[in-house]
């Protein structure tokens, strides 16, 4: 019994010290991390809305779309930038994508993700998203490997889960943009 008490109190002490140290480090680093994350989102927002002015934020009713911001051209509402959560191979991925009001994909950026480096992580490259850009309006968003060209299918081999996660999120965003409509 005495032994038991000694063991548990020592393990408890180790855990308590570890928790205190971690809490201290976290309280110092958390604001820095939040500021950095905010900067990343702002930069991505600038990039996906090239050629448009950033308009007002619209409240989102869909759970997987965490925010919608209208983008304007010549003062008129021309499309939307959406922050969409997709399901990847390594858990949720955050995608920032812009759509015209007719649902056409203008630009896509993959933000926070935990995809496998060398495979799914390639989706962070700008060139990866070219297979989606321009679709969603008259041509459907490619959600299956069979919708892609051979070269594109090769590019995603080994990371099909990442691809279909992004594709489904973009399809959702596109149909949401059509639903919201616009002035043109």
């Amino acid at each position, binding site marked *: 019994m005495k032994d038991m008490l000694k063991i548990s109190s*020592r*393990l408890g002490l180790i855990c308590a010290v*570890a928790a205190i140290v971690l809490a201290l*480090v976290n309280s110092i680093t958390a604001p820095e991390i939040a500021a950095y994350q905010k900067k990343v989102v702002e930069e991505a927002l600038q990039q996906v809305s090239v050629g448009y002015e950033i308009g007002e934020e619209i409240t989102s009713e869909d759970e997987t779309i965490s925010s919608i911001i209208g983008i304007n051209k010549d003062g008129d509402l021309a499309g939307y930038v959406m922050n969409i959560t997709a399901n990847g191979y390594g858990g949720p991925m955050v995608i920032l994508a812009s759509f015209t009001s007719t649902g056409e994909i203008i630009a896509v950026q993959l933000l926070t993700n935990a*995809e*496998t480096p*060398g495979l799914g992580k390639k989706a962070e490259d700008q060139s990866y998203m070219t297979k989606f850009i321009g679709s969603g309006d008259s041509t459907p968003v490619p959600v299956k490997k069979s919708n892609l060209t051979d070269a594109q299918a090769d590019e995603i081999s080994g990371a099909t889960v990442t691809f279909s996660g992004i594709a489904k999120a973009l399809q959702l965003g596109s149909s949401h943009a059509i639903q919201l409509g616009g002035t043109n």
Partner: protein
Amino acid sequence: MLKEFTKGIFKENPIFVILLGLCPTLGVSTMVINALGMGAGVIFVLTFSNIFVALLKDFIPTKVRIPSYIVIIASFVTIVEMVMHAYMPSLFASLGVFVPLIVVNCIILGRAEGFANQNGVLVSILDALGMGIGFTLSLLLISLIREVLGSGTITLFAMGSFDGVIEIPLLFNAPMRIISLSAGALLVMGYLKAFFNWYSSRARG
């Protein structure tokens, strides 16, 4: 004492001889840069966990030593992750995904259990550095083979006008894709292990 340092690089190489830490090895060895990042992370965490395990070896009760080591290792990994995320965001962007993987790297727990809890602080540091460097070199070898054959590139850190990617002629246009996939990891690992076995048995005579 120097023996404690060099044994991790050759004689007791964690990957090819004692076969520890294979999951991260097979998982991240698709690009050379990943090997460098993972290696640096493991060297750092291994050194600090060995120091603390060696310091606390008389305080930690034998019956709960494994949970205690895990708490120590996980704390260091979390600290590294938070500090890196806050102050070195560009480094975190490229290495961030590997950091949590270090917690489950068997090499670290293996060295805490197999070495640091019976030895002094100084030798434990040497052991950690040797094992860490041995791990990094092995990982570098596997990832070099896999990236060159599987993708036809060698990816290093981007510096100035150099984007960090060296393209190998011929292989870049027609890479052996299988080598960069999971099956390729096992194949390369198996052939290398066979080669080192053959080499060391020949050296022994």
